[in-house]
């Protein structure tokens, strides 16, 4: 356990620099986005009201008030978020392959630690989780700050203040609901499903690292099998066209399948790491 924590700390520190730089980009770009969008809106408003002499009420009903909604749809806001998602997705693979490739042979060290090799696996998956939750947490902290800046810049009668949930449902980006779900239960379910997916991917990587070219096929095969097992309750119902289970029951069964698939993945990975892995 202690060595597991040390490994988590070590793995996190390895990516920390890049990670904090990305957080900084997120911060700067989004705040810049808020300022630019507000400025644009104000300029446009002034022009319309003072030059085109459109009455305020008519302007508002025609063009609508300013809100975070308009900021969200700009590349300044959504761009760095996409970058963060991309980094995590990419790092799921890199976190393993960087130990094999390159000048160093750090994987020798990791595999020769006097601790269960599974701890290396768990430390890496924990790091991925920490990175993901860190981004989510940081974005949630940023949002009220950005809203406040908008409040400073745009007068109340031209502005609608939106909460995070309101923003997501009024914007077109419903995908954001996956990242910032409405309730804590959905949060746990969404990220739980993400965790299942990452363990499957990690296991596929373990297959590849154990059997190389043959391992790619084994890894893909394992992933497909895991996905089929995971969705088996739904697939069976669709196939039979018999919707026997209530949605709540499907959810419970799916949670159980998720736990089963995760346990299988970790068990298989443990076996591969202990018996089959190659440096």
């Amino acid at each position, binding site marked *: 356990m202690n*060595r597991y924590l*040390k490994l988590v700390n*070590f793995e996190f520190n*390895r990516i920390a620099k890049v990670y904090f730089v990305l957080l900084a980009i997120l911060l700067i770009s989004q705040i810049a986005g808020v300022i630019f969008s507000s400025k644009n809106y104000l300029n446009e408003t002034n022009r319309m009201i003072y030059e085109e002499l459109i009455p305020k009420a008519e302007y508002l009903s025609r063009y609508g008030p300013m809100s975070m909604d308009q900021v969200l749809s700009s590349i300044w806001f959504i761009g760095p978020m996409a970058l963060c998602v991309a980094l995590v997705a990419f790092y799921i693979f890199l976190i393993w392959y960087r130990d094999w490739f*390159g*000048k*160093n*042979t*750090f994987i*020798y*060290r990791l*595999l*020769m*630690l*006097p*601790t*269960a*090799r599974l701890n290396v696996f768990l430390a890496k998956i924990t790091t991925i989780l920490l990175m993901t939750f860190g981004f989510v947490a940081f974005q949630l902290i940023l949002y009220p700050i950005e809203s406040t800046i908008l409040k400073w810049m745009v007068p109340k009668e031209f502005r609608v203040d939106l909460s995070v949930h309101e923003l997501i449902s009024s914007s077109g980006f419903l995908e954001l609901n996956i990242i910032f779900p409405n309730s804590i239960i959905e949060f746990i379910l969404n990220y739980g499903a993400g965790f299942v997916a990452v363990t499957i991917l990690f296991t596929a990587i373990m297959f590849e690292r*154990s059997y190389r070219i043959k391992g790619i096929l084994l890894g893909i095969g394992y992933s497909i099998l895991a996905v089929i097992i995971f969705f088996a309750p739904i697939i069976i119902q669709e196939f039979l066209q018999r919707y026997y289970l209530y949605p709540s029951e499907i959810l419970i069964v799916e949670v159980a399948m998720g736990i089963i698939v995760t346990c299988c993945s970790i068990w298989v990975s443990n076996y591969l790491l*202990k*018996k*089959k*892995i*190659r*440096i």
Partner: protein
Amino acid sequence: MIEVKDITKKFGRRKVLNGVSFTANKGEITCLIGINGVGKTTILNAIMNLTPINSGHILINGEKIKKESYEKITFIPDAITMLPQMRIAEAMGFMNDFYDCWNQERATELLGFFKLKESERISDLSKGNTAKVNLLLGLAMDVDYILMDEPFSGIDIFSREQIANVFTSHLIEDRGVIITTHEISDIEHLIDKVVLLDNGNVLKEFNAEEVRENENKSVVDVMREVFKA
């Protein structure tokens, strides 16, 4: 004692190890000799459970390798096992963090011996100094066995001498060492036991001292005989 019993290893259809057996004792330097590509590194990897073998088994002090074994046996591969962005001090800190058998005093002593600075980054080191750090990280562990893969390859002459000096020092005393090389000259006079490998087979396993005393032959003489035949 490290016992390697009848291990075979295939890479695809190619058989790299074809029933290799030998033993290495504590307090002795055992040298695996063979031209490149005969599977010397594979044997060391197999001992450390870094590559699966197809058959046979390997015992360390009578037991199969397990996670606790890594406090008793260490492996110094031919490339450094630390991240290039680390400073030497950080690399030592890492070892100290994870290994109970890490001996910080000895590490400091070795730093002085190799004339290395703690604050240097591994990526900035010369090839020779990188090899020395690699060696340092292995030697500063209080382990029973040290495996070394080609410690002299591609290193300048002065570094070689420094490294060779290690073998006669108290740093090696009482430990069991397995070393691979394709060039025997630097350490010929140091080694106790020789395992000659070719085509995945052990051609000959002999005691260097005995050959020297009884047959008045050097290790190289024996190699010539064996490989010619």
